[in-house]
């Protein structure tokens, strides 16, 4: 395992000349010419593909005025904004609650009492292994809860369990000497946790925590499937409107940049924090292996 965090930043295109990989040497003039040729070919292919897609959009009449007119109406705009507000509301509730649940479960897993530890482990493992949607549907259908609480509860159970593992790895990755020194100073168990281990763990784990919150934000769109009136639901309402000639593609073209933009903003925060995290100079922290560093779940 390399000493560097293997979760490399997304969105950076590193110049090859500055850093060669194990795959190839720094290219010479002949190879550079060839690479430029490949580059031209790839660019041309992509431009052709894009042009074909745009032409297809025009050919199927996606840019006709009647399909785009609804977005000029105030009622429709308010519908979309209300949907967005509902999405953000669900996200905020789920984020706060899953951080709390994660904290509680992590305490349980790090507990010195065996029954507590077993119980927390069972809960964490079960909810991590279940699809979020099964939980949401179960709460919504079997427990007869309204849509928002069902969505928030499902997201909280899943993300809380994942965050519990993140917190636990974070606490365990703090160098052992820190804990030993704290105990040697006569601090009690709780004090060691709150004053020494948790602050360092949170700092180390903040990027991963935010990455997990991106997952929560993406999963709020599952509310659409249980008819929670969130952003995608609002889009679907507009898209199925016969008065505007069923503007499905325009709706997708309006909605997806907003969703992707929100998630990218949050991912970008995580990425910034990851880069700014103190390196090995400060405290010697074990890097988190890739399969623990981020859970790609949905």
């Amino acid at each position: 395992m390399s000493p560097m965090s293997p979760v490399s930043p997304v969105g950076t295109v590193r110049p090859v000349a500055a850093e060669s990989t194990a795959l190839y040497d720094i290219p010479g003039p002949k190879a550079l010419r060839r690479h430029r040729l490949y580059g031209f070919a790839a660019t041309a292919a992509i431009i052709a593909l894009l042009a074909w897609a745009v032409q297809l959009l025009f050919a199927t009449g996606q840019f006709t005025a009647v399909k785009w007119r609804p977005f000029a109406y105030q009622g429709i705009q308010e519908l979309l904004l209300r949907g967005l507000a509902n999405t953000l509301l669900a996200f905020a509730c789920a984020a706060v609650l899953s951080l709390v649940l994660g904290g509680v479960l992590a305490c349980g897993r790090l507990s010195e009492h065996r029954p507590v530890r077993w119980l927390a482990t069972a809960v964490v493992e079960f909810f991590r292994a279940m699809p979020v949607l099964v939980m949401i549907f179960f709460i919504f259908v079997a427990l007869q809860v309204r849509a928002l609480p069902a969505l928030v509860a499902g997201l909280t159970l899943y993300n809380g369990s994942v965050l519990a593992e993140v917190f636990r790895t974070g606490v365990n990755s703090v160098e052992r000497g820190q804990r030993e020194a704290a105990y040697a100073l006569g601090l009690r168990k709780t004090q060691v946790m709150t004053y020494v281990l948790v602050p360092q763990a949170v700092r180390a784990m903040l990027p991963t925590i935010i990455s997990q919150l991106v997952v929560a934000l993406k999963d709020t769109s599952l509310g659409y499937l249980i008819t929670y009136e969130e952003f995608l639901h609002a889009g679907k309402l507009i898209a199925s409107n016969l008065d505007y000639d069923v503007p499905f593609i325009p709706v997708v073209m309006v909605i997806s940049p907003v969703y992707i933009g929100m998630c990218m903003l949050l991912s970008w925060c995580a990425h910034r924090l990851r880069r700014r995290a103190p390196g090995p100079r400060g405290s010697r922290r074990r890097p988190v292996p890739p399969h623990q560093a981020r859970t790609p779940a949905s």
Partner: protein
Amino acid sequence: MDVLTENFSLYGEGFLGTVELTVYASLLALALGFLMASCRVAPVRSLRAIGTVWVTVLRNTPLTLLFFAVLLGLPRFGLVLPFQLFAVLALGCYTSAFICEVLRSGIGTVPKGQGEAARGLGMTFGQTLGAVILPQAFRTVIPPIGSTLIALAKNSAIAGAFSVTELLGTYKTLNERGFSIIWTFVWIAAGYLVITLAISALFNVLEKRWGLVR
């Protein structure tokens, strides 16, 4: 218990649907992810840009939105395929972004000296890649690929809500037939546990066989 025994064929159909979806989408995700990973580590800038855009966009797209766009959007361009194929497409593309990142970080863990030594011995690019770098990268990526594929199996539940035959979708029929909802969900949960545990067992075996000894 009788919920399972009396509706065994329905559950079986749903279970097989989920397994099929998982297997096909996994294959697509692995192939596309490998392609995109090779783009991302290529020495050609525009290929790298393509890979980066693919990964960044797909990783930040909610899967429900992707399903929504693919299953309901593509037919509007005259592309009419069975829903299951669409679901495999959406799920495979989505997961390929994560697979791509895993593979890329796997290649990143191979020390630079390995490639330099291989070229120093006069190996061609293909030989360096096939005999030196990929075997080493493969060892480190087994566990993360396993967890990515488990996530894929869990995500396949979303397809059920878009009228694709799979495990979660069986609850609707059972609900209409008047069976206990709680037990219905218990068996659905058991089905998913079987699938995820099977994948994790498979990857444990792979890791034991080829994994890096730490």
